[in-house]
């Protein structure tokens, strides 16, 4: 995926909106945490210019399942896992979804969120639903 030419990084409007929400929800009253987070995000973006699926002690990336037929043959959806500074539990589990377009040599940041947004420790009912779900990928 990486070559001599650096990758172009773009942020979609949705990414900016989700980043704004994250900063507001978690770092409004914690300037130190915000500074640490900013440094982490910058380092991740800079790594993406040369390595599309970076893996370090601070972050991990994996291919993400995309809804069928939503991507072109040269496109790949990826998910970055990282620890949000000074946050614990579900809130400290950060994710960034991004699109790798090999043809255009371009990376689009699509969405940033924390695991807490999609599930805290599941209530028993949700847990039961999840267990019943048979592992099938729900449609979009």
């Amino acid at each position: 995926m990486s070559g001599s030419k650096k990758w172009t990084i773009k942020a979609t409007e949705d990414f900016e909106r989700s980043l704004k929400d994250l900063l507001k929800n978690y770092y409004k009253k914690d300037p130190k945490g915000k500074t640490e987070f900013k440094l982490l995000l910058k380092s991740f973006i800079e790594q993406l210019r040369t390595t599309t699926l970076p893996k370090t002690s601070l972050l991990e990336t994996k291919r993400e399942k995309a809804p069928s037929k939503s991507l072109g043959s040269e496109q790949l959806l990826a998910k970055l896992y990282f620890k949000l500074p000074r946050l614990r539990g579900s809130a400290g589990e950060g994710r960034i979804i991004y699109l790798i377009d090999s043809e255009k040599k371009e990376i689009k940041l699509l969405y940033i969120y924390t695991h807490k947004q999609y599930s805290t420790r599941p209530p028993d009912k949700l847990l039961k639903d999840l267990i019943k779900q048979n592992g099938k990928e729900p449609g979009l």
Partner: protein
Amino acid sequence: MVNIATLEFRHVIPESYFQGEREKPEFWSRLPFLLNHIARKVREDWDSFSPEEKEALINFYYLLIGEGKIPIINRITGLLHILKLRISYGSSFICTLNDALSNLKYALTDIVENSNPQYLRDLGEALKNIHKKEKEITSESLDEWFEKVDD
């Protein structure tokens, strides 16, 4: 609550793994292999786990990310056990074990997130809007871009 320690996952773990008793050193030396094996199975065939195993794995995930309450005595014995493994197998074994735990953690987090309809809606929305307004972020404009978003 189902505890992961009480289950043996015999259908996903090679029978040979159980030939070593817990007291034998090889049982622990193969723990990273076991965790990676479960992680692969979680990704590829979540359905093959029984409801009890699924519940135990999800509970284990929340313990891994620090959501559940672990009694102080269990924390101490856990730390002592890690120390014992560090002494027996060296620091590289602890790194391998940590990588395997992370691997399982990521596999489980995907199961939980992908099962949340809201996550799938938000992901679908983000993909739908992919060609709408976008900004290039260069090394030079990175700080300015961040400040604008944070405004």
